């Protein structure tokens, strides 16, 4: 973190945010388009970060950017190893109230698969997008909650676009996907297996924005401003599906018909549920993914918005 903060001539604070590549970053652009950043005294440069968003953590620690997107598991992993990072703001959380709302992520199996419910996933091979990411975790969590052995499952990282194909050709037994590939899979006749997804943990944070502890100590006001701006961005995202799709079309390589056919997404929120965060961490400890589950204040910025 650099104390002599850069400002523009018009007095805006300049910051850089690393985004994810495939999804979850949309509110950033929507906030930019709606002028939310400027309103809060910020000039934000949005840069594509690493393919595996966990790699954005070292980038922020190195000072390549002040803020970045990653998954909740990334922050927990980092905190467990003692890396000084804190979640600042949520972006995507599992919907808290409406069980009827279409899901934006989940586990899919081919239509003719013998897998009927979550317990059948035990002993199977499941394709996901990133190793040690949250799909991996949710699947194991789901199996554990259903009374199975969370260790007895093979999780393999595959390129996002090949997930559906891989499941249909039988390379994997099931896949953990999110939009827009979720819709694509369902559209291709695949079946959803409930119970092993973030949606089964209402309020759990999927994607979030984090920064380094050091930076936050010196620039709390900048972080506050960013949270405010993102709040504005997430509102747009929840309300204006067309604008959301336009951003996806512009900033991802996902084919247009995938984007047009996806379910309406209304899960955007800046709030982070600290208790759920801790619960997730302690499950990761149980699984042996991390040695010691960190406390909420080791993972969350003290001023992070909470529900």
């Amino acid at each position, binding site marked *: 973190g650099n104390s002599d903060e850069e400002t523009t001539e018009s007095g805006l604070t300049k910051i850089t945010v690393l985004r994810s*590549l*495939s999804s979850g970053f949309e509110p950033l652009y929507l906030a930019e388009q709606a002028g939310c950043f400027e309103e809060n005294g910020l000039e934000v440069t949005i840069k*594509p*970060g*690493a*393919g595996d968003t966990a*790699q954005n953590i*070292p*980038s922020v620690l*190195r000072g*390549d950017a002040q803020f970045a997107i990653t998954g909740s598991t990334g922050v927990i992993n980092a905190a467990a190893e003692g890396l000084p990072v804190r979640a600042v703001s949520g972006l995507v959380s599992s919907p808290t109230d409406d069980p009827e709302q279409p899901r934006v992520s989940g586990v899919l199996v081919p239509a003719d698969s013998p897998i009927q419910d979550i317990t059948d996933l035990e002993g199977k091979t499941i394709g996901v997008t990133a190793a040690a990411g949250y799909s991996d975790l949710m699947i194991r969590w789901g199996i554990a909650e259903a009374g199975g052995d969370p260790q007895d499952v093979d999780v393999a990282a595959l*390129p*996002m*676009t*090949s997930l559906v*194909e891989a499941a249909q050709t039988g390379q994997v037994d099931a896949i953990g996907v999110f939009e827009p590939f979720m819709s694509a899979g369902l559209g291709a006749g695949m079946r959803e297996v409930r119970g092993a997804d973030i949606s089964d943990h209402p309020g759990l944070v999927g994607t979030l924005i984090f920064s380094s502890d050091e930076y936050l100590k010196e620039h709390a006001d900048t972080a506050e401003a960013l949270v405010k701006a993102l709040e504005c961005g997430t509102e747009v995202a929840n309300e204006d599906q067309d604008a959301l799709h336009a951003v996806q079309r512009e900033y*991802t*390589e*996902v*084919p247009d018909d995938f984007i047009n056919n996806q379910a309406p997404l209304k899960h955007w929120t800046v709030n982070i549920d600290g208790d759920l965060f801790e619960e997730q961490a302690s499950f990761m400890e149980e699984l042996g993914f991390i040695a010691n589950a960190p406390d909420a204040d080791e993972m969350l910025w003290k001023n992070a918005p909470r529900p």
Partner: protein
Amino acid sequence: MAESKSRKAARRRYGRLAPRVTVLAVLLGGWWAFAAAGVISEDLVPTPLGTVRAWAELVVTAEYWNSILETLRGAAAGLLFAMVIGVPIGLLTGTYAALERCTRVLFDVLRTFPGIAMLPVFLLILGATFTMKAVVVFIACVFIIVLQAQYGARSVTPTIRETVRAYRIPKRLWFRRVVLPSSIPSIMTGLRLAAALSVLVAIGVEVLTTVPGIGFRVTEAQLGNDSSSAWAYILTAGVLGFLIVVMSELAESRLLRWRPSSRLEM
């Protein structure tokens, strides 16, 4: 007279080219048949025509040329460092037996080490940056160069050593006019191999991370289900590597004009 000579040369060139054109046709035909047979979905293996079409679209974009430039920049930076550091180390260890002995185990271990395995570590330390790419390229190339330079320095024949001694040639002349030139063929071989490798490694890094360049475009196109573009980029990489091999051979044969015959009939 001159005309008939040039016509003959042309005929000979055609005679040399014809079998290669045939092989090219067979390869393209095989590819087309494979893609058309539909054993593998067209999302993964496009037809040659589709690939060419995708390439034609790409070749007019700045993005295409920028990626090539980025890849080359990373490869060149790593290669340059490998050369600047590898050649002197190789010559020194090749000239002085004691140095060779104490570095042998170290080099043997490091040489076999796959630089790509350091990628997770480098990602943590350096991030998905240009520097990281250059460093991985450097690690992959430097030992080839060191070993070839070492081998070259030791290729000074005993007879030449003896000649130099009998004619009382001073040490600095010996290094500049004997050791260096006699190891240049070997160093050139090392550089040629390292040059081809550097592009491969740079692209490998780009495929696995998000450092801009051809490799990144390949993954991006694959993510977007655009296999034709992905293949167009992969083949671009092949052409690039091929050109580097051919050009470094040309450079080699120019630089080593004193060598009687530096290549096989191929």
